[in-house]
């Protein structure tokens, strides 16, 4: 048995709880990562962070491979790494469904969105949506949904940071979790203010390499233990699971979602259609100079993200076999602890396990930092470029002033994220992430696709689609079992859960598409055919796009 080898923390914890590795080793590796990345951010950003194009898009100077790495760094959040491995370890097959949805979604971005977006826009999603529409209403709507999606995603990451620390440092104290959330928020502000998009991109690239490499090494290690025989890995995992609970089959679908099948289908829609509507993902396409590089970015990202999700599959079954569900359930963080616990178990615990765990823990922290920095820059760009410049100043704001506003917004967003993160730290992280995906799929994707591919689409259609998708997604969430009624809900004691699915996409995505069509056909607006021609020619050929960058 493994119990004697675990360090039982005498303080701060109930006797049943165990602690992984050595908290000081985890903190040390984390500190090294922060110092190294901050140094790099300061070095790469010297001299160039005053101009709008530098701050928002790093001057569009990255190549496809670099941007592909950064996209992977932006996209592979702690929820992917810890959440999916944990879901597979405890419920088997269903975790695979998550991984596949997150990956397949990139084909929407590759085939339909990345290149025309790069060719038509400059800094934000609203650049594309408002291109041939009346600027103010569309920019306001696009900025509102950008801020909503970014904020939900940010909350999820901040709450994740708090959960991660209780897991890795073995601290249950609420004050320590709050402190870590404050540190993460402060580092996020620092990365973005010092480095702008250039610095942020470098942090994301480093993190992507560390995460994919770390997960890759763990995967090879697990596979080596079963002689690279996938069937034996599944067999061993299932034997371990059945010892713990007779009749369990980790290969059987619906172990986790069986009680809410429609809810699961709804989640699948949000995952596959949400990615190409996530504003922080869209903004990454502006950091490369041409559509061809945007295409290369996505192909690199698909390769890296695909490899990573294949790894999570092996890691999940590996954790089910080597660590085992009963042990995982006694760790603080439960399912989220499966991946770090596997890192501790693989080298046979002891010193080797302590060091390997500390490295993987450092990578997990790095993951959160890179993702929140990307979100902060997207939200601040949207506020300064779309709301301040286009809506408040009628598009005539001084660019230097606009960047100043963007930088101030970063601080405000950082503070909001810290306060929100502390408030949301006990919330289910996966729920917050799926909410962000559902809003992106319902409010953003319909109007992006319509503006790029439907000539008749107009201002009213765009505004109805964005607000309709946004309001229906958030509204349905409020009345779902995720917020009230269920024991795992935000308010378990209240009961206003008349909408049965815990993800709204099944209804809210069609609402977004339908309202976009209805708003368009009911509008008397005469379409601006010149602008429409310019947009279509630009989106397909990139003519004039370089001019937009050099602006």
């Amino acid at each position, binding site marked *: 048995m493994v119990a004697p080898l675990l360090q039982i923390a005498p303080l701060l914890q109930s006797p049943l709880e165990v602690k992984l590795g050595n908290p000081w080793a985890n903190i040390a590796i984390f500190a090294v990562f922060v110092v190294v990345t901050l140094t790099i951010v300061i070095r790469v950003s010297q001299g160039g962070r005053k101009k709008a194009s530098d701050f928002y898009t790093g001057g569009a100077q990255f190549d496809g491979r670099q941007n592909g790495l950064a996209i992977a760094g932006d996209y592979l959040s702690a929820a992917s790494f810890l959440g999916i491995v944990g879901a597979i370890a405890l419920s088997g*097959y269903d975790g*695979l*469904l998550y991984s*596949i*949805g997150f*990956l*397949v979604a*990139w*084909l*929407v971005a*590759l*085939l*339909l969105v990345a*290149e025309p977006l790069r060719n038509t826009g400059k800094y934000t999603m609203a650049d594309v949506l408002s291109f041939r529409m009346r600027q103010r209403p569309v920019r306001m709507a696009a900025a509102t949904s950008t801020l909503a999606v970014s904020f939900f995603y940010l909350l999820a990451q901040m709450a994740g940071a708090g959960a991660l620390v209780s897991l890795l440092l073995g601290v249950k104290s609420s004050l320590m979790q709050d402190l870590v959330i404050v540190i993460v928020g402060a580092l996020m502000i620092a990365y973005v203010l010092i480095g702008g998009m250039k610095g942020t991109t470098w942090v994301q690239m480093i993190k992507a390499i560390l995460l994919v490499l770390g997960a890759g090494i763990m995967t090879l290690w697990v596979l080596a233990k079963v002689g690279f*025989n*996938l*069937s*034996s890995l*599944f*067999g061993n995992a*299932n034997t371990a699971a059945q010892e713990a609970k007779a009749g369990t*089959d980790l*290969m*059987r*679908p*619906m172990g986790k*979602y*069986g009680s809410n*099948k429609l809810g*699961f*289908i709804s989640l*699948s829609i949000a995952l*596959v259609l949400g990615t190409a509507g996530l504003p922080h993902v869209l903004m990454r396409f502006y950091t490369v100079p041409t*559509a*061809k590089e945007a*295409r*290369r970015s*996505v*192909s690199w990202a*698909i*390769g890296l993200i*695909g490899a990573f*999700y*294949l790894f999570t599959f092996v890691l999940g079954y590996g954790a089910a076999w080597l660590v085992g569900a009963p042990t995982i359930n006694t760790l603080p963080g439960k399912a989220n602890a499966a991946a770090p616990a596997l890192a501790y178990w693989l080298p046979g615990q002891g010193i080797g396990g302590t060091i390997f765990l500390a490295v993987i823990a450092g990578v997990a922290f790095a993951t959160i930092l890179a993702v929140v920095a990307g979100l902060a820059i997207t939200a601040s760009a949207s506020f300064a470029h779309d709301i301040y410049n286009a809506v408040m100043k009628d598009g005539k704001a001084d660019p230097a002033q606009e960047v100043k506003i963007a930088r101030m917004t970063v601080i405000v967003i950082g503070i909001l994220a810290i306060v929100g993160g502390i408030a949301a730290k006990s919330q289910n992280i996966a729920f917050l992430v799926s909410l962000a995906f559902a809003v992106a799929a319902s409010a953003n994707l319909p109007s992006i696709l319509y503006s790029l591919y439907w000539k008749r689409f107009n201002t009213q259609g765009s505004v109805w689609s964005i607000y309709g998708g946004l309001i229906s997604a958030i509204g349905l969430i409020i009345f779902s079992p995720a917020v009230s009624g269920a024991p795992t809900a935000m308010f378990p004691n209240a009961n206003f859960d008349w909408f049965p699915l815990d993800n709204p996409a099944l209804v809210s995505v069609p609402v977004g598409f339908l309202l976009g069509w209805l708003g368009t056909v009911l509008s008397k607006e005469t379409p601006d*055919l*010149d*602008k429409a*021609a*310019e947009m*279509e*020619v*630009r989106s*397909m*050929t*990139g*003519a*004039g796009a370089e*001019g937009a960058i050099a602006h």
Partner: protein
Amino acid sequence: MSTPEPHEFGTPGSPGSTSQTTGAAAFREVQDSAEFAELRSRFRRFAFPLGAAFLIWYFAYVLLSTYAVDFMTTRVIGNITIGVILGLLQFVTTFGITWLYIRHANKNLDPIAAKVRDDLEGRI
């Protein structure tokens, strides 16, 4: 909005010629050209069916996993089930479609796009 310049050297609908239209008129002219129509149709004929195909294949897999649980749990090779094989095939098709699209875009789209773009150079 700029008024269309008279174009003595080129006819509308052939941006391959040395048309002198500028600004909005140039975009309108390109949009109506046979060359641009070809580019658009090459892109759409490839991306739209492929997009529909992968979405259908993905949702078929999701629905099978949700409602055909026994079928997906059928063991085929050792402990490897039909569900796992179809799941891994989702990865394979995603990589495959990416490769196909990149090849198509490099070979069939980029040359026309570059030609149209060069043609518009200095006119917009």
